[in-house]
Each structure stands twice: as C-alpha cells, then as structure tokens.
C-alpha cells in the first residue's frame, strides 16, 4: 500500500504540472493506511513512587562540627577530565563517618574553605545534602539519610 498516497489524500492537497494536468506517477488514496497517520509522540516511562516523604523543613548548617555531629564528613574529591562538568577540578561531597578512606580525599575543616557551598539539613525527613556549584552537575548533591 502506498503510504504517501494515503497521507497526501488526508492533507487535502493535490500536485499538478505547470499546465494544470495531473501527474500520473503521484497517487492519492482515500483508503487509510493500516495504522492511523498520527504524530508519533516522544515520551518515556518512569515509576511514580508513593508519597512517603513529609514536607521538608530545610535549615542551613553553619559549621563543620554540626555536620560531624550528625555523622558525616565534608570532603573535597578530585575530578578527572571526563568527570568534570565545569572548570572546577574538584567537587565537594558528604561521606558517612568511618566509611571513607582517609588517604584518598581531602577533608574540609571549614565551610568557608569552599566558596558557594552550603549544607542543607531536612529536619522533617532526617536527611542532609550539599548544595552549590561544586556539589554536582545540577548544583545539588544527593540527599543522604541520617
């Protein structure tokens, strides 16, 4: 079956030569092609999770001691060329105490060590994250549960 013939007919247009004669090699078919001529949309599926989160109550943590009291450590992690998303050579990440290898990453002792970085704490859902240009490509690090 000639798809273009069916499509042209649905568009209600006809093509002629300059003298107004029909062109016999261009056909029009009122029989509809086996499937609908509808615009194929583009979408993808994700799973909608149940709403188990409470409305977040976010506070900014001001000192590194508060971060450590919650069981986390703030570190500067070097990035390779392929990992970089901006001109920065390092990123800032939170690690659970006792879980990171000390000799690999530089531990930050003050929040002022890195410009533009802040640490947010969600009191309602008990989670913590880093926010800023060095936190991740989207400007935010992942939420970590306490």
């Amino acid at each position, binding site marked *: 079956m000639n*798809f273009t013939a069916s499509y042209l007919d649905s568009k209600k247009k006809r*093509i*002629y030569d*300059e003298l107004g004669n029909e062109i016999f*090699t261009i056909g029009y078919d009122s029989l509809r092609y086996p499937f609908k001529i509808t615009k194929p949309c*583009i979408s993808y599926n*994700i799973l909608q999770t149940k709403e188990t989160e409470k409305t977040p109550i976010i506070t900014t943590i001001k000192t590194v001691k508060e971060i450590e009291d919650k069981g986390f450590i703030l570190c500067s992690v070097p990035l390779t060329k392929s990992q970089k998303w901006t001109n920065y050579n390092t990123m800032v990440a939170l690690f659970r105490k006792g879980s990171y290898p000390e000799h690999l990453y530089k531990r930050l002792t003050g929040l002022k060590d890195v410009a533009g970085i802040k640490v947010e704490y969600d009191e309602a859902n008990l989670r913590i994250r880093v926010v800023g240009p060095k936190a991740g490509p989207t400007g935010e690090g992942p939420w970590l549960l306490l």
Partner: protein
Amino acid sequence: MVTLIKGLFGSIPRNNGLMQAKRYSVINENYAKTLGKSWLPVGESEIRKCSIKDIPFMTTVDGTIVCIPKTPEMGMIAAIGMTGSGKTLCAGYILDNVFWNWEDKIGVINDSQEETFVWSESCDNNQFKNKLKIVDQSPCPLPMIYVLPSSDKPQEKESFLIDKNYVCCSIPFEEVINNVEYYLPDLGNSLKYLLGKKEQLLDVRTEDELFEIIDAIDTGGSGLAETRYKLRVSFLNLINEGILNISNSSIPPYLVVKTTGDKKEVYNGNPLTAIMIAGCIPSFITSNLYTQRYKDAIFSYYINCLFQESLNGIMKGKRTWLYFDELTKVVHSDPRLSSPLTEKALNNIASRGRNNGISLIYATQRYNEIPRTIRSQTKYAVIFKHKQKDETKTICDDFFLDDKSRDNILGLKKFEAIAATTEYFICYKGNKRWETNGPLKGNIIPPMHKNRFLHRV
C-alpha cells in the same frame, strides 16, 4: 521465565538476601516500564509518562536519553563515521522526529545510493522496534515523493518505485538560458551571439522555435555557418542527454500545488518546494547525476531555489532542513574535487541560513574533507567509529575533544556514538531534565522508517 530473567540480568546470588531483593525490584521496574502496570514492584503506585519536546537521538549506558534542543537559530547537524557504523540510521531518526514532532520541512537533496526508496515503509527490524519502545515510539513511514532528474529513466528503477509516488522533473529552460555558460561551457565566441538573442529565447515554447532562433543568428561576417552549427549541436546534446526539456509536459520543470475541493492554487514553482508545501518530503535521486557534467549546475539550481524561498518566498518563516547523505560527493574542501557553484550555494546557506530558517543535516565519512564554512556552522556532531586516528583530528579540534575522546572514537562499536556539540544537549533521566555540554557516549536510537540495507531480523 525465571531462566529468562536470570539470562537477562545475570545470576542472582542466593546467599545474600538483601542483594536478591534489590535485584528483583530492579528487574520488575524494568519490566514495568516496558510491559505495563502488572509488573510494578511492590510499593510502587503507577507508571508515569514524561514527554520529551526535544529530539532524542541516543541513550547512554545509565539510561539517560540525550536530545538535541529546539532553538530559534538552526545549527547544522552532522553524523560522521566510517561506512556501516550507523550514520544514516541516526540521521534518519533525527529526520523522523524533525518531521513529525517539530513539524519542520525536510528535503533530501542527494540520495546517491537510493536509500530513501524504502523510507516510505515502516521499520521491520525487531531489534530496532524494541529500541524505539524506550521513547514510546513504534515504526512509522515517512511520506516521501521521489524526484528523478530528467536524465534518468524511471523504467530502470521500476522495481523500487512500485507503490511509491514519484515525479520526473527537468531544469527550466529559463534557468539554462540565464546560466548558459555553466550548461554550455564550450561555446567560446558563439556565446555572445546566443546572449544577443536572450530575450527571444526566453519566450520559446518548443524545440522548433529554439532552432529557428539559432538559424536566424547573424554573425555579420565569417563563421556564420560554424556558429549556427555549434549552437545547434550544443543544444541538441543537452536535449538528447535529457537535461533540457522545453515541450515535454510529462517532465515538468515546475509543479503546482492546489487544495482539493476549491482547487485554490497554493504554490507554483520549484518541484522540491512544491512537494514540501504539499506536506511531503521530496527526495532527489542523484545516483545517475554524478556521471553528468551538469551536476554542479543542477545541484546549485535546486539549492539556490530553496534558499531563496526561505529568504523571501513561500517558505519564509518556516523551518527547512536539507539532508545530504555523503556530503563530500557534493562539495569538497579540495578545489580540484569540489563543485564550485554548489559549494557557493551551500556556503550561502551555511552563513545566512540559520537566521532565515534553513539548515543542513548531513552524513559523511570524512569530516576533514568538508569545506570549512560548513564545518564552522556545524553545531551538533554524532561521531561514529573511525578507522584511523588522523581522521579524528579535525573533529576533535572543532568540538574541543581531548585525546581520551579521540581514543574512544576509535574503539566504538557499531551503532555506538559519541555526541559532541558547540552548544548544549538536553538530557532526560527519571523526572529530571538538564543541559549538558557533552561529550556523551551511548547507543543511537534507530529510525521509525525502514532501512534499505538492514532487513527483517
């Protein structure tokens, strides 16, 4: 079914209960996304659709869908790589979505391998159909109308043209007379006598009228017979080669588009534009044109027409994409191999097209042989496998790729590509959408239409 699941996702360790539960949840999540709600993992409420407004063309290993954004300024898109790596498939899928979702106009300007003959049929490759499900799409043909040059014989392509719409078109006689030095380059001194009769020639309606005017040429001195003979033979050659057609209405130089019912004329002019205005995609079949010595003049005529229509004609305000497969067969950075008129026409589009709604999508095996003007306007490159390192140097320089990316290009597999841009790509994953400069590596999404060389699998 258990064996199938194990085969797909590897063996599930039996002595680690937590790992087993997590793997099982992931397995169900993947099935739910493709097969439906009955496969939802425990605790999940429903499947949600996220729509994509940009043009996806690739998926990365971690499931990110990489897209080309729709911007007011149209940048050129290139698919570059060795033969059989997936360039035409990638370009074909981009064209599918440009046509159906962006509703832009498309013209295939050089189909030298007659690949587009099957584009008006749906994809029948099972592997490709499964890949299309990632973006919720299914096989769908494109409404193609094939334009054969007048020098072609449709009988030779009869097996491909069954159940297809096509038209044989010639170059208008006015175009030949206005550019006679390109169509008849060997006239020498006779040219000035011909140009003296230009106004009369433009009113000619038959070959007989043409030869009457030639016979009436008066050189005012010696060489009259030779001049008339030379002009007559030159025009006869053009007619015999099928390039010139004055009175044969079955090979029209112009097409007219009218609405059904009231028969109101919508457009009268260049065949490629007429087909686009009718809502279809013209494909200029150039498999035999490369052997013609007029190919430069013919290509440049059609490209210039399309550019003028976009600049101040019926296509003004509409977005038009011109697709070139194997662009180096049309233009070349080496002047000895290039077609100067066509290169000038394409340079026009390259420099002025992006703000006038016309741009190129092209596929090529040798990016370094593309003229610099076109390369400098190429904003998006989908880079496939290359054979040799020196072939990748120009791409890496133009798109600021490092040595590691260059090595990655050499190690790519079939249908794998690295996407690079001088602008940005849009990425989708989960419920997030973000911009990135790339480069990104992944597998291409195949087209919804059929591919001539990859049959049912």
